[in-house]
């Protein structure tokens, strides 16, 4: 059975969606900019920039480097922090034309719990994306994601605080993603996001120094799509909860390939940074491709 030619999903987590394309965390803010441009129409869900308990300035610049074949980023979860998200951002996002999923990143298990508990008061968001895979921070981030036991603890801590659906965003940078996905499923996750950026680095050989201030960064590129397809495929056969694909999507066929690999929803990140109109272009392209079958 081929899920793709059988028809595209029209809902996710019980939420009606116009198609399978969602916006990846950290590449769309809280959706407000795109909504102002009228570009959320074809978007399934908006995954917010990571929210952390405290405000974070982020890493020292330079934080972005385009290697030509891909983007290295070292943002470091820059965000206004829980309080201002509650007082300023969520009220502003209340009128968003598509549902918002809050991406949450913390440095300890208990802080994951308390941050989500605080956000529960906040508004009408559709759910949470538990970020245990950020490659750009010293504490937390992918240090959790590489360890299935830590993934389980974090997932349970969040699960205890909310009845909204949660997805756990896994890391490709070590450990065993299939075990981590199963740990998330067993601990009450409603989906897993596969995956986050790949650890990468560029050095200037003339100086011997990294181009990003922090040295390593998270790397994304359309050339990484096969790595994401493999991981979605492997995780998809190991869990029964939906898989949200994240990584390498550039063209309509990429979305269909990830769906065929087992994804229920497909995020776009780096491609969106380049083309805010990408979700609409993908929606149109997908319609065209499927007409031809």
């Amino acid at each position, binding site marked *: 059975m081929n899920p793709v030619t059988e028809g595209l999903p029209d809902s996710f987590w019980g939420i009606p969606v116009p198609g399978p394309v969602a916006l990846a965390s950290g*590449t769309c803010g809280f959706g407000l900019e795109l909504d102002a441009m009228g570009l959320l129409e074809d978007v399934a869900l908006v995954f917010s920039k990571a929210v952390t308990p405290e405000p974070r300035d982020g890493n020292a*610049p330079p934080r972005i480097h385009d290697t030509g074949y891909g983007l290295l980023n070292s943002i470091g979860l820059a965000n206004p922090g829980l309080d201002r998200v509650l007082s300023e951002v969520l009220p502003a996002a209340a009128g968003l034309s598509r549902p918002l999923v809050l991406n949450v990143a913390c440095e300890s298990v208990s802080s994951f719990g308390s941050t989500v508990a605080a956000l529960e008061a906040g508004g009408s968001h559709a759910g949470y994306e538990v970020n245990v895979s950020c490659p750009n921070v010293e504490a937390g981030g992918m240090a959790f994601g590489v360890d299935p036991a830590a993934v389980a603890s974090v997932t349970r801590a969040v699960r205890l605080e909310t009845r909204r659906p949660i997805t756990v965003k896994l890391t490709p940078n070590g450990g065993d993603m299939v075990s981590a996905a199963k740990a998330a499923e067993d601990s009450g996750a409603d989906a897993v996001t596969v995956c986050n950026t790949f650890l990468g680095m560029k050095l200037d050989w003339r100086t011997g120094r990294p181009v990003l201030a922090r040295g390593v960064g998270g790397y994304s590129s359309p050339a990484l799509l096969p790595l994401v397809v493999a991981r979605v495929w492997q995780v998809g056969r190991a869990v029964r909860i939906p898989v949200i694909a994240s990584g390498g999507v550039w063209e309509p066929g990429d979305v269909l390939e990830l769906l065929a690999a087992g994804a229920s929803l497909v995020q776009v990140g780096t491609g969106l*940074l*380049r083309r*805010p109109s990408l979700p609409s272009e993908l929606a149109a392209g997908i319609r065209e491709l499927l007409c031809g079958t």
Partner: protein
Amino acid sequence: MSSSGPVDSDARVIACIPADEGIFRIALEAPRIASACRPGQFAMLEPSPGAFPVSRRPLTFSSCDPEAGSVTFLFDVAGAGTSILSRSVEGDSVRILGPLGRGWETAPGRWLMVAGGLGIAGFPFLLSTADEAVVMAGTRTGRGTSCCPPGTVLATEDGSVGMRGLVTGLLEDVEWDSFDSIAVCGPSAMMRAVVARTPPRVLGRVQVSMESRMGCGWGVCGGCPVPSSRGGFMSCCKDGPVFRACDVDWERIS
């Protein structure tokens, strides 16, 4: 007319011609952008219809003709992206997102505009809105001089054109108080030097156009931090690229 947020569209290349050694001027047909953009704002141009390079390149509007529906940019061939752009020919299509960011706070009165290198690119547009202005520009070798507006006071490090020395040398005789607004655009080190030389009493009139690598240009990636004098960072593409000089923490500018 009121500006209504950036527009992402394919623009026809009207012309792309060398303006000086390694410098190109590209003119694009982009009516909605032309009627909305303001001096100091910028656009993100997609250097290739293929997948690579993966991100767009920010360029400041150099001039704008709302009637003709066209905008122009002046750019250095700095690397892969601008090199692809420079090979555009009439009739090609270039994807462009704009206008983006906050431009110069335009104000009546007399302007001093100080450029380093291709920081001059945006001044023709700003000049077109100014009552009266003095333009100063410094370059290393005189490359780019031909892109400066007529009457620009010049300095070159090698002395080939204008005064020998840095652009800050030109500032020594400036009657600061005669200017209502001061606009500075160029490499960070040059802007820091200019700001350092500005008498504190006029610092409030100084605006600077900051550069940063940009992941998106439309305010969502967090890739373009500019250190704020109030601590933390501002976003170059959304809070800037033009800032009041006193809002920038120059100590944290490398």
